């Protein structure tokens, strides 16, 4: 098997001191934003993306990836110690983790969360390494219509698996696709929907769009209800980090199941860390012999979801790396990062940029190792970070994102775009809309259109082409069934159960 040769290429890339440093910085930043409520990995990646512009592509991807899975570690610390999800994906961890902390078992909860995440991270890395190459081989046989169908399925599934109104999710996707049309049409070279300004000739700048919708809108939401923060940090000194044998035995099953679940759910379009942790919690509660202990400090309620969210975070890289299709908004930004670097995402990535491809995969393993060290012995340091007040933090976030947005093209117009999408993003949250499908649609739009046009050109304008190729037809049928299923009440109810824990 040349998987070892491939991994060796990856290790070669990661062990280069500069890449090792970027991996470390990514994990450190990821942990920090994971710990801090109010800023998540998505916002951070959007802000730092332009900064990585000057780095080599490997370094940039390694660092950005580190932020994503690092945040999964950091989020659990806040969830356990102050009953507040530092990161959305840790929302379920707070339920039982905080109860454990109140019972004086914070150390055990933190340790199991970190060790579970570590195990999940290692396993998911292996999954990526094993499945990446076969998947790319498969992907290379795809025609334009297959790609089109795959993206349609991805879009539909991402709404089906997300929470909130299905219909509004669809509206957000279509709006995103429409916004993605702005700019120069690649086929004809004509300007589209640019409102007559040359500043939009290259399309709506993705960084400005992302920073507006996420950073600005999120900050405003935080300012709605500003109270003197009384963050009740339960234990300033966390003791008893070493879990006992009994703890390890109790959490082994949930960790294994969470890891498996996360690895699968992460690959699905629309999946990723969040879905994995919610599903894992629901599963553990169902399987447990003592379901009544959930909500009162069940170790399984920490071990399962924490493993699942880390596995899910990492396996969501699979469709991004192999197909060039983002399965969630963070991956959409990663694709944006690749394109800014001049690297074409898609199935050719593994052959054209093996160092980048395998480097990112191996960096996840190294990164997980760093994260365990960063998170367990240094947990006291992160707890201190929680005492930083929000009103010192948000001006800094605004400043950082403004510099980031400007630095991409040195064009002040991009800041206008950022402000406009800040208003739009804030307005959308008031209309009960999720910004995630909007960003997904925005990134997928140009690709979706390109494949549609190519497919129609090949088929001489005959729309039946989408039913003649078996792969295309199969994918479209799955998409149609999925859409039908989520609009159908019975399944919608079970979907509600999975997400019920969130409120």
């Amino acid at each position, binding site marked *: 098997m040349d998987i070892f040769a491939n991994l060796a290429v990856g290790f070669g890339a990661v062990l280069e001191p500069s890449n090792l440093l970027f991996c470390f910085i990514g994990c450190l930043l990821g942990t920090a934003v994971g710990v801090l409520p109010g800023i998540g990995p998505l916002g951070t990646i959007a802000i730092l993306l332009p900064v990585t512009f000057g780095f080599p592509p490997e370094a940039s991807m390694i660092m950005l990836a580190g932020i994503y899975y690092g945040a999964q570690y950091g989020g659990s610390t806040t969830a356990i110690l102050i009953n507040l999800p530092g990161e959305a994906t840790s929302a379920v961890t707070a339920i039982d983790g905080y109860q454990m902390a109140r019972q004086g078992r914070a150390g055990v909860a933190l340790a199991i969360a970190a060790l579970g995440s570590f195990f999940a991270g290692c396993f998911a890395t292996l999954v990526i390494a094993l499945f990446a190459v076969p998947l790319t081989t498969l992907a290379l046989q795809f025609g334009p219509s297959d790609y089109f169908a795959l993206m349609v399925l991805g879009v539909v599934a991402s709404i089906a698996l997300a929470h909130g109104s299905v219909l509004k999710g*669809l509206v957000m996707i279509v709006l995103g696709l429409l916004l993605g049309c702005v700019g120069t049409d690649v086929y004809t070279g004509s300007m589209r929907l640019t409102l007559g300004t040359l500043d939009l000739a290259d399309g709506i700048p993705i960084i400005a769009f992302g920073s507006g919708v996420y950073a600005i809108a999120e900050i405003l939401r935080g300012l709605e209800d*500003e109270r003197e923060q009384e963050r009740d940090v339960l234990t300033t000194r966390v003791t008893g980090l070493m879990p006992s044998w009994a703890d390890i035995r109790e959490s082994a099953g949930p960790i294994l199941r969470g890891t498996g679940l996360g690895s699968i759910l992460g690959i699905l379009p629309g999946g990723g860390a969040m879905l994995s942790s919610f599903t894992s919690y629901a599963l553990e509660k169902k399987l447990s012999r003592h379901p009544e202990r959930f909500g009162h400090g069940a170790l399984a309620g920490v071990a399962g979801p924490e493993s699942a969210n880390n596995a899910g975070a990492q396996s969501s890289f699979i469709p991004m790396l192999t197909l060039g299709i983002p399965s969630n908004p963070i991956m959409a930004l990663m694709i944006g990062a690749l394109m800014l670097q001049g690297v074409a995402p898609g199935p050719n990535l593994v052959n054209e940029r093996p160092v980048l491809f395998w480097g990112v995969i191996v960096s996840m393993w190294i990164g997980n190792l760093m994260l365990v060290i960063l998170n367990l012995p240094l947990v006291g340091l992160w707890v201190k970070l929680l005492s930083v007040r*929000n009103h010192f933090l948000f001006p800094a976030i605004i400043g950082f994102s403004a*510099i980031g947005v400007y630095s991409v093209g040195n064009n002040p117009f991009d800041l206008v775009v950022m402000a406009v999408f*800040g208003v739009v993003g804030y307005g959308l949250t008031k209309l009960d809309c999720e910004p995630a499908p909007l960003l997904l649609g925005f990134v997928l739009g140009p690709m979706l259109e390109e494949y549609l*046009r190519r497919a129609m050109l090949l088929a001489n304008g005959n729309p039946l082409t989408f039913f003649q190729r078996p792969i295309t037809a199969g994918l479209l049928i799955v998409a149609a069934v999925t859409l039908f299923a989520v609009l159908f009440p019975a399944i919608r109810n079970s979907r509600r159960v999975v997400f019920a824990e969130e409120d």
Partner: protein
Amino acid sequence: MTTEMGRPRPRSLSRRNITFAAIFVSFAVATGIYAYRTLKIGTAAEMGSGFFPVMLSILLALLALAVAFTPLSSGGQPLRFASIKSSILVMGAPLVFGLTIQSLGLVIAVAVTIFLSSFASRFATLRQSLLLSAGFTIFCVAVFHFLLNLPIPLWGDLIIG
């Protein structure tokens, strides 16, 4: 406008969803007409630049219209807005940066942006805001200018001339 009118009864039409539909349908119609008038539609085999946008506009309008006839989802939170002062300061912050970055340069643009936006919080005091903006400006100059070598001039055209 701080709260939604009463508790949304199941099956009744939601005011928020009707607002949603109104906004999105008008946006879709406007975009559709704009795309149709300025771009070529082409044929199915050789789609013009306008084919996809016009198609999407129609789809968007239809979907948004459907939203008007759905009841508000049970998870809907009561409407709450940030204060007008906070909104203006936060939303305006990128504009302040955009207006000052070329004429005054990185140092002043960052300092002013941070200083002004910090007053979006109720807890801001003049002294703290000054300190915060000074400290963060030094940090940004160190990171972006010296460490990352971003080609953004420290001082703008107006200052250096």
